[in-house]
């Protein structure tokens, strides 16, 4: 035995690694299922492909019945959006291959993206984009569709040349404003027809290298269904829809207001549209873009809000308005008579 060697010390030394693993309470190469480990290489279910399960700030609503702008769908070759009261049948052989993104925190919607279907045999290709700008939230300096179209034509990128200046027109019997521009380099043309519905500027953007194709696309739009309120400087709701009023949630129209308290996400813009019932209570809430914790906090606050009933022609009517919660760092659109009362 070497000098100084202790049998006890030898045993302790040998057992140290075991003690260390004892604290881990599992063999290192065979961890139990859970966390980052799984012994199941033939799981019954898989994470679905192409489905967004983990969302950031996203759109949601207080109920699933009330139509929302982003609720438009292309089915049986017809685009219909119950919120806007639009029904439009694209040309035969055209369809929506991909849906658009969710509403943005600046109030931008992609309602439909229509293009020739796979197998299309037409001589030239093109596309139809149907979008909406929520005029309560758009950061562009415009308060109605006409002002928005005016701004767009005056601020075209240097890549484009204006082909047709802003021109009043009618599509399907309803007033629109129309303009066109093109890219000399790309040889692509864009024809834009804009109207306003429920305080949203709704745009139909047809694009192609072939102007005859675009013209035929626009002519085909003459058969679409639009609500009676549609108009570039009209479109303030009413009829079957609530009247829409910008910045209606102000002290002069309210009797009770409680601010939501954000505890987790605090720095994003949270645009919210609400419908106020005839008695002054919030009956529907649409979050254009909110994290779930924010939606809950806002919902908790809005249930306590009370408005004075809005009277039109001697009768209380429902009102739709927008409130920007959270941080809205962008320049706000100036208020104008067209969308305020």
């Amino acid at each position, binding site marked *: 035995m070497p000098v100084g060697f202790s049998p006890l010390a030898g045993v302790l030394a040998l057992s140290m690694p075991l003690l260390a693993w004892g604290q881990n309470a599992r063999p290192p190469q065979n961890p139990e299922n*859970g966390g980052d*480990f799984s012994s199941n290489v033939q799981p019954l279910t898989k994470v679905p492909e192409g489905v967004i399960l983990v969302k950031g700030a996203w759109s949601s609503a207080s109920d699933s019945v009330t139509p929302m702008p982003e609720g438009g769908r292309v089915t049986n070759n017809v685009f219909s959006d119950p919120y806007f009261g639009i029904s439009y049948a694209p040309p035969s052989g055209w369809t929506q291959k991909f849906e658009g993104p969710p509403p943005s925190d600046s109030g931008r919607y992609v309602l439909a993206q229509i293009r020739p279907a796979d197998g299309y045999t037409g001589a030239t290709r093109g596309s139809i984009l149907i979008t909406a700008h929520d005029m309560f939230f758009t950061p562009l300096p415009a308060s109605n569709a006409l002002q928005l179209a005016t701004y767009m034509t005056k601020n075209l990128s240097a890549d484009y040349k204006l082909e047709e200046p802003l021109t009043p027109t009618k599509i399907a019997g309803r007033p629109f404003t129309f303009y066109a521009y093109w890219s000399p380099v790309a040889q692509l043309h864009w024809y834009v027809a804009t109207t306003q519905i429920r305080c949203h500027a709704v745009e139909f953007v047809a694009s192609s290298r072939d102007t005859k194709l675009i013209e035929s696309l626009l002519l085909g739009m003459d058969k679409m269904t639009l609500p009676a309120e549609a108009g570039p400087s009209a479109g303030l709701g009413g009829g079957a829809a609530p009247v829409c009023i910008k910045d209606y949630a102000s002290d002069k129209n309210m009797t009770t207001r409680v601010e939501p308290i954000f505890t987790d996400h*605090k720095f994003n813009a949270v645009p919210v549209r609400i419908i106020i019932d005839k008695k002054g209570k919030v009956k529907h809430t649409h979050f254009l873009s909110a994290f779930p914790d924010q939606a809950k906090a806002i919902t908790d606050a809005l249930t306590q809000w009370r408005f004075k009933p809005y009277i039109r022609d001697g009768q209380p009517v429902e009102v739709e308005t927008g409130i920007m919660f959270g941080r809205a760092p962008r320049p706000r659109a100036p208020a104008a008579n067209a969308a305020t009362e």
Partner: protein
Amino acid sequence: MIKKGRLASVLTLVALFLAGTAFAQTDPGVQGGNRGTGVALSSVLRDDNPGILAFFNDGLSRFQEVESVSGGANNGLGPRFNSNSCSSCHAQPAVGGTGAAVNPQFAFAGSSVAPKDATPFFITANGPTREARFPFFFNSNGSANTNAPNGGVEDVFTVSGRSDAGVCSLPQPSFNAARSANNIIFRIPTPVFGAGLIENLDDSTLLNNQAKNFNNNLGISGTFNRNGNDGTISRFGWKAQNKSLHIFSGEAYNVEMGISNLLFTQDRPLPGEDQMQRGFPVNCLNLSGGGYPEDANNPGSQGAAVLDDVSAFANFMRTIAPAPTGPVVLNGNTVSATSISNGSALFSSIGCATCHNPTPGSTQKSNITGSLSNAPVNAFSDIEVHHMGAGLADNVSQGGAGSDQFRTAPLWGLGQRIFLLHDGRTTDLLSAIQSHESNGSEANTVEQNFDNLNSSQQQDLLNFLRSL
């Protein structure tokens, strides 16, 4: 014998076919040669702020150091890691870039770097250098639990069996089970050339650029990922989840190499080890023997050497110049300047530049070096995060960015990148462009515009991109 008439028609068909081939658009591929990428900013080379060049060189040197677990010149690696040196991942086309053609990770398992580990299926000899993430935790029966988001990095390698790691022995994450459950996604390294310019863009510049781009008829409307502490715009990483180059460095040192530091002060277990309160076994802690954090300042040193590694890395990234543009060779022939110029104009005209903004603005005055002051940032990015659709979504949320939201990837240096998109799924530019469209993508209309170009125009655009 073919009759004359028939011969003529056959020849015509051949000619048409060849013409079609000539105009079929092709990614010119990774451009060779030395474009001068990887050097310091010009004012740094002049050492305009005395000592700044020493900072750059010191950072460059440390960026290439190979880390050991213990007993070496640079200690602290592990217990889990993806690689053992910054430059092993940030390598192409120069130190500071992105993944190289030969993936160094492929040689780790079974070698002295990771002797007890296996090479997982997604690490290949000539594939992208990668990190892996599990979007969801596994539950107790071993299947992915889609109600339990994970999303953290699952380090590929462990120090198990290394001669400098004592008896620490750890299992690798369950990569094969994750593949079976479709519960694994990948990321490749982002290049850092010109990163100091991006860092020095004032928030107001980015916000003004965003406001300017709202007037598009493309359905594009991005937002910013914001720092959870102060609400300002964060800007580094695939989802713009990191506010500054210091945080970017500190996180990478900790997550990718397992080295605790002044910003991330503990050894990092896997997300599930943390969630299940396992942590590391004690014999895998303080493997360097020097205590925590494993990377710290060096008060006894002089000059740049006094800095901690994270600060040195950040200095290097902050002061390295953007990748220069260069000529493009396609099928052995140099592409004409006209083609590249036309491609640039097309890039803007069809809407690519709405997000991949050639110059989102100029920097604010810098307190570091002249080249970072009032300089245009030709990054081809708006630094916003955009919805890129289900086709690119990875079910990983970082900061305010959801699973389909990605920072507009800066395109400067694209001409010499090999692997494209956040996970390196393709090496082909055309495929990368086409991946921009899927359900829920803001880029669908722009991609459609690209499809509406003729082949010659598309070729010009690809040529332009490889000139960057």
